C-alpha cells in the first residue's frame, strides 16, 4: 500500500509545484494583480508602479476577453522609478464574461512580447476574474484534502478514515447545494467561474465554471458519491488506502465536470483513472486484477487518443492571451476554443476526405465512447462491474459512464460543431446498436451484476442516439437520461450488493422467492427495475421517450429499431425480476432463512434518496430540464448550424 500512498503524494506535490511557478521581477508592478469584475455600472481601481531603477514607458492599456463591457481610460505616460499611476476600470454592463483581462503595454523587457507588436511592446497582465468565486475550487479539492488528512493520520485509524471520508463527501453535497442555490438557470454561459493562470509556460489555466449540464453532473456526482461513501462503510480491508483513493477519485470526477480548460479537463480525467484502477484491483472480487487491468488499458487507450486530440486542438487554436492578459500563441481555454474555433472547419484535409476537424473529432470520440461505453468498446464494463466492490460499481455506473456523453457535449459538440454535425448519423447508429445489443446481451446473462452492467450499455445508447438526433428533444432526452440513468443504475448496483452481502452469489438462477423473505427489499428492487425498464411515472421513462420522439424526425428506421429496446428492456428486466424475487423460496439453496434479513437501516438510508428522486423526477422532470435548457440550446444551435 506504500506504493499507492507514494503515487498519490507525488502527484500532489507535482501539482503544487507546477502551480507555484513564480513570476519574474521586472519594473512594472501592478497592485492588485487581479481584480474582481465590477458589477454593471461599477468601477474597480488599480495602481501601476515602477518598481525598477529606470523609467518605465506605458504605451497603452488594452482590454482583452469577450463582451464584458469593460472600459479603461486611455493611459500613455512614462513612470519614473518609484512613481505610481492610478487606473480606473469601469464596467458598463453586458454579459457576464467567462474570461477577461487587462494588458498593460509597456517597455519592461522582462515581460512577454506583444504578438505582432513592436520590440518595445511588452505586456503586463491583470486578471479580471468574472465574479470569481472559490466555491468550485473548494468543491473539487475538499475530497483531496480529506485524502491528505487520512494519509497523514498515524496508524491504521480506520474509524478516523471513515469519518473523514463521510465528512468530505458530505461536505461536497453541502457545497453542491450551495452552488445550485447560486446557479442562475436563466443565464447564459459558464457561472461560478474561477479563473487563474496555473502553468504559465504551458499556457494552462485553472479555469473552472459550470453551465446547466455540468452543474447537473456535479450534483449527480455529489449525490452518488455520498451514497457510495455510505456503502463503503462496510469495506474493512486497507481502510485508509481505500478512503484516500476514493476521495482522490471524487476530486477527479468533480474536476472533470467543472474544468473549462482542456488541459485541466484532461488532467482531472487522468486523476480519475488511477484510483479507479486500484479500487477495482485491490478491493475487487476474485478476478479483480484481470478486470482492473482491462479497465486500465481500455481507458488508457482512450486517454492516449484523447491526448492526441488535446494537443492537436491546442496547436490549431487561435492566438490570444491568458486570463491575466499574458499573450499566448495558443489556448486550452474551452470557452474560447468553442467561441473562436470555427476556423477548424476550414483547415486542410488530412486523410483524403477527412478534414482536420473530423480527425480530431474522431480522436475525442474514441476516448469518450470507451467511457460511455458504446458498442463495440464496451467489454471492459461487465468485467469491471462484476469484480468491483459495490460502492465502486455505483460510482462507475452512476458517474464515470456519464463522462462519455458529457465529453461529447463539452468538447466534440461545443468545440467542433461542424464535425459533430457531420458525424451525427454515425453517433446515432452507434447509439441504436448499443441499445439493442446491450439489451440482447443482458437477457442472456446469468450473473445479476453483469445483467445490470449490460443494461447500462443499452441505456447509455439512448444518450448517443439522442445526441446524434440533433434535435432539442433528442438532446434534452440524452441529458435527462444521463442524470436519471445515474440515479437508477446506482440503485440497481446497491440492490445487487445488498443481495450479494447475504447470499455471496449473484447467480440469478440460484435465487427465487426472495420477495417472500425480504418484502421491503423486493419493493425497492421492483421500483428500481420498473424505473430502469422505463415505466412512465418513474424517471427512466422521460429520457427514453424524449430521445425516441426527438430522433424520430431525424432517423425513422433507426428510431424504430432503437424503440424495440423498449420491449427488450421489459423482457430482460422482468425476467430477472421474477427469477430473483418471485416463485417459491429456494430453500434447498440456502442453509437458513436468517441469512436473508430485510433491508438494514443503512441500506434503506442509501436507497431512499435515490428512490425519491426516481419518483419525483418521473412525474416532474421540469426542474431538471430547466437547469440545462439554455446551455443545451446554445450548443445545439451551433451544431445544427454546423459552425
Amino acid at each position, binding site marked *: 500500500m506504500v506504493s499507492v500512498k507514494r503515487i498519490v503524494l507525488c502527484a500532489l506535490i507535482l501539482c503544487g509545484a507546477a502551480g507555484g511557478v513564480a513570476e519574474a521581477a521586472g519594473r512594472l508592478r501592478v497592485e492588485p494583480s487581479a481584480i474582481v469584475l465590477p458589477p454593471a455600472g461599477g468601477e474597480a481601481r488599480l495602481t501601476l508602479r515602477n518598481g525598477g531603477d529606470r523609467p518605465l514607458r506605458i504605451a497603452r492599456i488594452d482590454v482583452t476577453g469577450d463582451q464584458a463591457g469593460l472600459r479603461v481610460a486611455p493611459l500613455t505616460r512614462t513612470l519614473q522609478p518609484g512613481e505610481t499611476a492610478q487606473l480606473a476600470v469601469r464596467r458598463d454592463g453586458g454579459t457576464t464574461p467567462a474570461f477577461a483581462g487587462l494588458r498593460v503595454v509597456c517597455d519592461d523587457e522582462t515581460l512577454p512580447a506583444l504578438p505582432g507588436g513592436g520590440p518595445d511592446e511588452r505586456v503586463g497582465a491583470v486578471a479580471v476574474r468574472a465574479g470569481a468565486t472559490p466555491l468550485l475550487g473548494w468543491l473539487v479539492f475538499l475530497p483531496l484534502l480529506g485524502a491528505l488528512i487520512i494519509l497523514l493520520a498515524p496508524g491504521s485509524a480506520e474509524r478516523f478514515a471513515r469519518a473523514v471520508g463521510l465528512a468530505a463527501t458530505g461536505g461536497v453535497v453541502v457545497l453542491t447545494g450551495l452552488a445550485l442555490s447560486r446557479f442562475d438557470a436563466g443565464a447564459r454561459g459558464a457561472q461560478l467561474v474561477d479563473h487563474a493562470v496555473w502553468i504559465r509556460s504551458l499556457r494552462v489555466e485553472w479555469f473552472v465554471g459550470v453551465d446547466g449540464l455540468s452543474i447537473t453532473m456535479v450534483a449527480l456526482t455529489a449525490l452518488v458519491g455520498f451514497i457510495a461513501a455510505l456503502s463503503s462503510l462496510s469495506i474493512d480491508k486497507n481502510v485508509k488506502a481505500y478512503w484516500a483513493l476514493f476521495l482522490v477519485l471524487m476530486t477527479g470526477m468533480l474536476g472533470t465536470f467543472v474544468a473549462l480548460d482542456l488541459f485541466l479537463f484532461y488532467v482531472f480525467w487522468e486523476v480519475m483513472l488511477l484510483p479507479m484502477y486500484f479500487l477495482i484491483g485491490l478491493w475487487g472480487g476474485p478476478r479483480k486484477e484481470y478486470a482492473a487491468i482491462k479497465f486500465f488499458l481500455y481507458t488508457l487507450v482512450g486517454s492516449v487518443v484523447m491526448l492526441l486530440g488535446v494537443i492537436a486542438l491546442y496547436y490549431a487554436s487561435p492566438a490570444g492571451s491568458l486570463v491575466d492578459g499574458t499573450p499566448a500563441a495558443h489556448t486550452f481555454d474551452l470557452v474560447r476554443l468553442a467561441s473562436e474555433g470555427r476556423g477548424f472547419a476550414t483547415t486542410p484535409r488530412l486523410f483524403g476526405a477527412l478534414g482536420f476537424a473530423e480527425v480530431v473529432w474522431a480522436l475525442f470520440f474514441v476516448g469518450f465512447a470507451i467511457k460511455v461505453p458504446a458498442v463495440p468498446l464496451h467489454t471492459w464494463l461487465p468485467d469491471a462491474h462484476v469484480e468491483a466492490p459495490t460502492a465502486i460499481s455505483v460510482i462507475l455506473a452512476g458517474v464515470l459512464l456519464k463522462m462519455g456523453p458529457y465529453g461529447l457535449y463539452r468538447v466534440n459538440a461545443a468545440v467542433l460543431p461542424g464535425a459533430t454535425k457531420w458525424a451525427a448519423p454515425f453517433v446515432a447508429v452507434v447509439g441504436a446498436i448499443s441499445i439493442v445489443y446491450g439489451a440482447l446481451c443482458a*437477457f442472456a446473462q446469468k450473473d445479476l451484476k453483469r445483467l445490470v452492467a449490460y443494461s447500462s450499455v443499452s441505456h447509455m445508447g439512448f444518450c448517443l442516439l439522442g445526441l446524434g438526433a440533433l434535435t432539442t428533444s433528442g438532446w434534452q432526452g440524452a441529458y435527462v437520461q444521463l442524470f436519471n440513468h445515474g440515479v437508477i443504475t446506482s440503485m440497481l448496483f446497491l440492490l445487487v450488493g445488498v443481495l450479494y452481502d447475504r447470499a455471496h452469489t449473484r447467480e440469478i438462477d440460484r435465487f427465487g422467492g426472495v420477495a417472500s423473505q425480504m418484502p421491503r427489499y423486493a419493493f425497492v428492487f421492483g421500483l428500481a427495475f420498473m424505473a430502469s425498464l422505463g415505466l412512465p411515472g418513474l424517471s427512466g421513462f422521460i429520457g427514453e421517450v424524449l430521445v425516441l420522439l426527438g430522433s424520430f424526425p431525424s432517423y425513422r428506421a433507426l428510431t424504430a429499431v432503437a424503440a*424495440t429496446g423498449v420491449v427488450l428492456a421489459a423482457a430482460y428486466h422482468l425476467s430477472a425480476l421474477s427469477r430473483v424475487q418471485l416463485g417459491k423460496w429456494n430453500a434447498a439453496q440456502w442453509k437458513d432463512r436468517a441469512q436473508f434479513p430485510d433491508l438494514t437501516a443503512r441500506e434503506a438510508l442509501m436507497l431512499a434518496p435515490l428512490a425519491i428522486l426516481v419518483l419525483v423526477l418521473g*412525474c416532474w422532470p421540469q426542474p431538471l430540464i430547466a437547469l440545462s435548457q439554455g446551455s443545451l440550446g446554445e450548443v445545439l444551435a451551433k451544431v445544427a448550424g454546423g459552425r
Partner: protein
Amino acid sequence: MSFVWLAILFPLVGAALNGALAVAGAKPPRWVHHAIALAAMAGAATVAIAAAVVLVQAPHEARRLVAPAWALLPGPGLREPLALVVDPLSATLFLVITVVGALIHVYATGYMAADRAPARFFAALNLFVAAMLLLVLGSSLVTLFFGWEGVGLCSWLLIGFWYEEPANARAAMKAFVVNRIGDLGLLLGMALLAWRVTGGALSFDAVVATGLHADGGALTAALVLLVVGAAGKSAQLPLSIWLPDAMAGPTPVSALIHAATMVTAGVYLLARLGPLYARAPQAMLVVAILGAATALWAALAATAQSDLKRVLAYSTISQLGFMFLGAGAGASEAALFHVVTHALFKALLFLAAGVVIHAVHEADHHAGEHGDPQALARMGGLAAALPWTRRAYLVGCWAIAGMPWAAGFFSKDAILGATLARHGWPLFLVATGAAGLTSLYMFRSYYLVFRARAPRAALAAHAVEALDKKDGAAMRRMVGVLVVLAGAVLVAGPLLGLPEALTGRAPVLEHWLAPVTSAGVERAAAPHALELVAMGLSLAAAVAGWALARALWADEARGAALRETLASAFGRFEAPARDGFGLDALAARAVVAPYRRLSSLVAGFDRGVVDGIVALVAMLARGAAWLSGAIDRYVVDGAVNGVARLVVAGGRRLRRAQTGRVNTYVLVVVLGVLLLGVLTTLGAR
C-alpha cells in the same frame, strides 16, 4: 386544480396507505385495509358522479370540464401541461371505472377475506383505479400513455399476485411483455403524429384538430401504429395471447382489469380519435378486420375451454373484437356502448364465477381433494347451493348472448348494424357467426356449472353451507354485489341504447357521446331496414346458439348422443381450439425461442468475438512486449555484455605483458623510442 384531480388522488392515497402498511409489514385488523380501499373508491365514485352532474347541466355542445396541472417539460409535445378533461366520452368511462370498480372492491373484501396479503392486494387494486382514471381522463396521448403503462404495471402486480406459483409470475410477465410490443406501436404512432401531423403537440384536441387537415398517408400510418398499441392492451390478434394466461390473477382482478376496464382502453383510444379514423378508411378497415377476426377466433376457442375463467377470458377477447369491429365501422358510440354494457355483464359473469370457484374450492377442502377449482368438469349441480349466483350468471349469459332486452342485445346489434352498413356482408356474417358462438359457449358454461345432475352436487351444497357458517358476511357481500350488477345489466341496455330504428330518436348514449366521437365527421345514417335485418339475424344466431347449448349440455344423459355425433365431426378441432389454435405455440416457436437463441448468440458473440478481439490485442501486445524484451536481452544487452566480455578477455591477454622484470620494460621502452623515431622520420618526409 379542479376537484376532478381528487378522483385520482383518492385511490392514489389509498394505494399509498395500504402500500405503506404492506412495506412496513404491519398487520392491522383486516377491516383497516378494506376501509382504506373502499373509502378511496367511494371518494372517486363521488367525484365521478359530481362531474357527470356538472356535465349534464351544461349545454350539449359545451360539456367539458378541464382540470389543468403541471407540464412535464417546457414547450410542446411532452411539454403541454398535463390536464384532466371530463367530456361525455371520458365521463362515461369515469363512471364505469369508479362505480363498477367500487362494486368489485366490495366484492373483493369478501373474496380475499382469507388471503395473507390484503394490504398489497388493495394497494395494487387502488393504484390500478388511479392509473385507469389517468388513462381515460388525461387530455393528451402523453397522459394516456402514463395511465396506459400504469395499468400495465398494476396488471403485472395483480396477475402475479400469488407470486409464489411460478406459473403466475410467468403469466404476469407475458402480459407485460406482450403489451410492451403494443406500446412500441403506440410510441412510434405518437412520434409520427408529433412529427408529421401536429407539429409536436400530443393533446387530443390538437391531434384531432390538426389531423382533420393533415396529409393522409402519414395520418393513416400513425393511426395504424396506434392500432397496434390498442391491440396490445385490448388483446386483439395476434397480441391476444396474454389475456387467457392473465386469469392467473385473483378473480376480482380478472373482473375489474381483464374484463371491465383496462382491456377496453384500446377501444377508448380508437373512440377518442374516432374523427380521425373516419378520415382514414384504410386504418378503419384494418381495425374492422382485426376486430372481426379476433371475435371469431376467440369465440371458437371459448367453446372448447375446460376452465371456467378461461371461457370468460376468451369471451372477453371476442367481445373486445366486437368493440373493435364497431370502431372500425365508424360507430364509435356503438363500440363504447358495448364497452359499458360489457363492463357490467362481464364483471357480473366473472364475479359469479368467483363465487362458484370459491364454493368448489371449499367443497374440495371438505372432501380432502386437491383438484382444480376452476375446471368445468368438476362443477355441476351448483344451482341449488347457489341460487342467486345462478340467477345472476344467467342474466349475464342472457346479456352477452344478445338476447332481447338485456344489455348486450342493444349494444351488439348496434355494432352489427353499423358493420353491415359500412363494410357489407362478409364482415357482418363473420361477426354474426361469432355472436351465435357466443351464445353457444356462454350457455355451455352455464349448463356445465349449474345443471342439475352432477357427481359433486351434494358436496357443493354442503360446502356452501359451511362457507356460510364460516364467513357468512363475506359470502353475502359477494352475492349482494352480483345482484346489484345483475340489476344494472337488466336496466342499462334499454336505458342507454334503445335504437333509433325502434324509437325514432337517437339512442341516449350515442347522443351523449356525439360531440366527442363525431366531431367534424359527416356520417350517413344507416337505413333502418338494414339495421332491423341485422338485428333479426343476430337474434336468430343467438337463439340458435342457446338451443344447441341446451340440447348438448343441459342434461348429462340426454345430450350424450348429440355430443357423440358432434365429437365425431368436430372432435379433432377441440384440442387446437382449446389452445387458441396454436397461436401461443406459434409465438413460443416463432418469437420467444428465436429471441432466446439470438440473445445467447449475441452474448456469445460479445464474449467470444468482441472481447476476443480485445484479448487478441492484449495477447499481441504481450507478444510484442516479449519480443522487445527478447531484443533487449539478447541484442541490446548482448551487445553490452559482448563489449564487457571483450574487455575482460582483452585484459586477460594484456596481463601477460606485465612480467615484472625491469630489463623487459627497458627493452620495450627502447624499442618504442626506436619505432617512434622511425615513424617521425618517415612522417617528416
